[in-house]
């Protein structure tokens, strides 16, 4: 049997929810004070995901970087791998908000999109 402590981010209270498991099966869950806490803890135990915001290098841009994010959450365990992948990438200005800069990162089915307009350096 294993025990996992998860802090719910649903509200400022931050309940510590404990999940007890046998293999993949949840045998007990307690410590939450509302349904959000229970649901959050189960999701967080089964498949924790996060949106990854970071930057990508830009060529010929008014700035050397463009901020980006994964358009949807990706598995938490992929965050560092995704960072290493994104670090290798360079894109060319101009860039518009929402432009897909990397398709289907690490086969997660999720694209990496620009979150700021970046003009060409020569046009500023």
């Amino acid at each position: 049997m294993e025990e996992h402590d998860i802090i719910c981010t649903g509200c400022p209270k931050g309940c510590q929810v404990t999940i007890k498991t046998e293999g993949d099966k949840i045998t007990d869950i307690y410590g939450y004070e509302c349904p959000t806490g229970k649901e959050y803890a189960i999701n967080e135990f089964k498949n924790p995901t996060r949106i990854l915001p970071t930057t990508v290098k830009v060529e010929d841009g008014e700035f050397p970087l463009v901020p980006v994010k994964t358009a949807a959450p990706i598995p938490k365990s992929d965050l560092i791998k995704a960072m290493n992948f994104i670090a290798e990438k360079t894109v060319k200005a101009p860039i518009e908000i929402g432009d897909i800069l990397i398709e289907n990162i690490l086969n997660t089915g999720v694209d990496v999109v620009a979150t700021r307009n970046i003009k060409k350096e020569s046009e500023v």
Partner: protein
Amino acid sequence: MTKHKMVVVGAGPAGLAAALEASKNGIDDIIILERDKYLGGILPQCIHNGFGLEYFGEELTGPEYADRFMRDIDQAGIEVLTETMVLNINQDKLITALNKTKGVLKIKAETIILAMGCRERTREKIQIPGDRPAGILSAGTAQRYTNIEGFIPGKEVMILGSGDIGLIMARRMKLEGADVKAVLEIMPFSSGLVRNKVQCLDDFDIPLKLQHTITRIEGKKRLKRVEISKVDKDFNPIKGTQKWINCDTLLLSVGLIPENELSKAMNLKLHPATGGVYVNENRETELKGVYACGNVLHVHDLVDWVSEEAEIAGRSAAEYLNKNQEKRDLPIKITPNKNLTYTVPQKIEYKFKDKKFIKIYLRVEKPMENVKIVFSHNEKSMLSYDKKIVMPGEMVTVNLPVALIKKNMEEIKLSIVEKVGEKNGRT
């Protein structure tokens, strides 16, 4: 000298929202003065998500949040002067500014919106003894280097202060490959949002050391190590608890100070708890026709509330210009009482017209559970709201229905009290 109906000082989230709202309310002669080259204030460097949940009902990053307002400003045709530093404003609403190409500008305004934002407290302000090497930065400066300029400030990082910027930068530095050794917090609780503590520290096993501070800094050219100490309940370092930690970078996230030099030049008094000016429910200052909103008024934890507050200021300034306001016979003081550090506004001065509520923003002194927020007049309770939890790091907003406000009232007090006999046991 030029003349404008409305001058907005600062093109951060507060200035943009105030200008837009005034424009929507029929004001057509607005100019925004911004010292930076770009609009959006601090938002473009806040590349993380978590913005807009309250205001737009969807989760955005900082640059995306700013872009929505920038587009609307553009569409509304509101004039913006960037690289323009306002040097002085006098009590006759005469503004002196310096523009990169136009030189000195004199602008006479009918209304002014103060939206200068805030700046970070520095090492000097908290007086950490020791050497003065390179590698000690405010968290916001490190954020700008990392997210906009493209420099990583260091490899082995310590962070002092667990406010949201400190937490966000802990994750950011870690994701960029730095070894983030710990986040120290002098208080017995983190002042950041729970979400940030979980997703920025716990996700990456970065330790949060509560009731700890830095007591010495060492390094000749570059920072080499810092001495950390546990503190007692009065925040004094406890002898014998010192420990040296090697690091080349120290980020400080130790509070924000509203930038009120211009307000002071106008002889406006500053509130000791907010660091901002005193305002009524319209966000109007002690000088008629001059408004303040956003972080220059009081430091907000969510930009969503800044936008909302700026809209109140913009709308009220438009009413002022349209001569569509009437004062009450008596102003009502709003006074923070038990367990509260401040309220905004500090008074109610105008007749309500079609308003149903006055929204009061407040900040609590310490974390408390199962509480009541009580409005009272002459020691008698007028209204109370139940709250499961309140924290100093999360601003609380409550609505005061205008139906409860009587003509002869001079003061309404706000308190936070624990509910008795209803202890909600935690397992």
